[in-house]
């Protein structure tokens, strides 16, 4: 079970410039943990002290915001795309 994780430009300093990586995991939490194994610096940037996502971090599985699904317990199908993006205000 592997997902493609897309890294936003603002986090690429913590990934040595890598914009996309393949990570094993069946849920968003597992994929993020796998991502933090690859790039240790990412953890403190997108996770808060309690282990949840920081409040301006949006995570999407196949284009859907995980807050409409099961949050970090959302299932990640094999080959799915997981996107991390900052929340942006202003319509």
């Amino acid at each position: 079970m592997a997902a493609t994780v897309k890294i936003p430009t603002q986090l690429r300093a913590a990934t040595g410039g890598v914009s996309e990586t393949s990570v094993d995991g069946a849920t968003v939490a597992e994929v993020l943990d796998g991502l933090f194994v690859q790039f240790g610096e990412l953890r403190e940037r997108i996770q808060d002290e309690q282990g949840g996502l920081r409040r301006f971090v949006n995570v999407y599985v196949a284009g859907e915001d995980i807050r409409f699904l099961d949050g970090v317990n959302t299932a990640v199908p094999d080959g799915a795309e997981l996107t991390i993006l900052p929340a942006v205000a202003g319509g």
Partner: protein
Amino acid sequence: MAAEKLKCKECGTAYPLEARYVCERCFGPLEVVYEALDADVAALRRRIQAGPGDIWRYADFLPLVAGPPGPSNHLASRAGLPAGWTPLISADRLAERLGLREVWVKNDAANPTHSFKDRVVAVASARARELGFAALACASTGNLGNAVAAQAAALGLPSYVFIPADLEEAKVLATGVYGANVVSVRGNYDDVNRLCTELSAEHEDWAFVNINMRPYYSEGSKTVAFEIIEQLGWELPDRCIVPVASGSLFTKIHRGFQEWLDLGLVSGRLPTMNGAQAEGCAPVANAFAAGQDFCQPVKPNTIAKSLAIGNPADGPYVLDIARRSGGSVAAVSDAQIRDGISLLAETTGIFTETAGGVSVAVLSELAGRGEIDPDERVVLLITGDGLKTLDAVRGSFEAHEIDPSVAAFDAAFAQAVS
């Protein structure tokens, strides 16, 4: 008060005044910080009053490095469209109807493209030119697209406007007419916003006014607060009713009041801030009612499409300001929105779009519940024009179709004139 740096609202990390909008350390939003202004209050007031009749009279409080663009915005289109300095109208008949003493309507439909978005776009596009961008772009619920397309045409820049596919026709037409590249995205605004956030990383020579230019863009909304103070004779209102979509306008109006209080340009206390949402898209009002300090996103379903942002990034700040100021964030139904549009039109002669109907309906509800002291000075913010959302009033009255004769008129109006 020259802009000094960008600073993360969450963790305080500082960044240079570039096209960046998010903190690399914690993903928090960045905001412009200014150098302390060393001028006496009387001199500052005189400088403002001697300024142009648009937002650039407040250039001391806006994030341009080289100062306002051009000597006369009214005469030179290449200096950009003249946004702001819209009327503040004493709405006596509306106040009377609601049992209040003093209600003022800030009519921001009186901007070049008929919404408050001309303010933010003027600032974002001026800063984009300073930074050397080649094109303007935005994710829009409609009004912003109109403003970006028109501003780009005035400045002679190409533009790319991304909108949800179900937008009102008037807002689509009033974007394309300026020669913009209109991109209709199959999805809601939050899908459009996500796409544009990704695209802004791929097109680094484009100024997405509400993404990579967001810290500059949002500062433009402070000018609403400055104008209200100046138009009230350098006084503060007691209360402001402001529609909430992403929450940016609400938080920046509050910041505008705060900045002038801090400088001593005005005295008194911060106004009570009331946010207005539609029930069909009320993530901030829901969080307010539940006592939460974060917003659970929703899938919008409301006639107030300009407020249809289900994932409002400034929601936490709106909640904080509403609570600290003794205000609230409330939601109203589509039927109340229609009634609000009619009430404003019939008592003030101002025809607003659905977002304005939301503000009027919330004011009406607050007044009806006795939550507003009758002696308060209330300012109601009208952000856009009713001609862009005609569907909202379709069927609300019937025209009298008659033959061209006096008898036919008399027959049709027999009851009315007898």
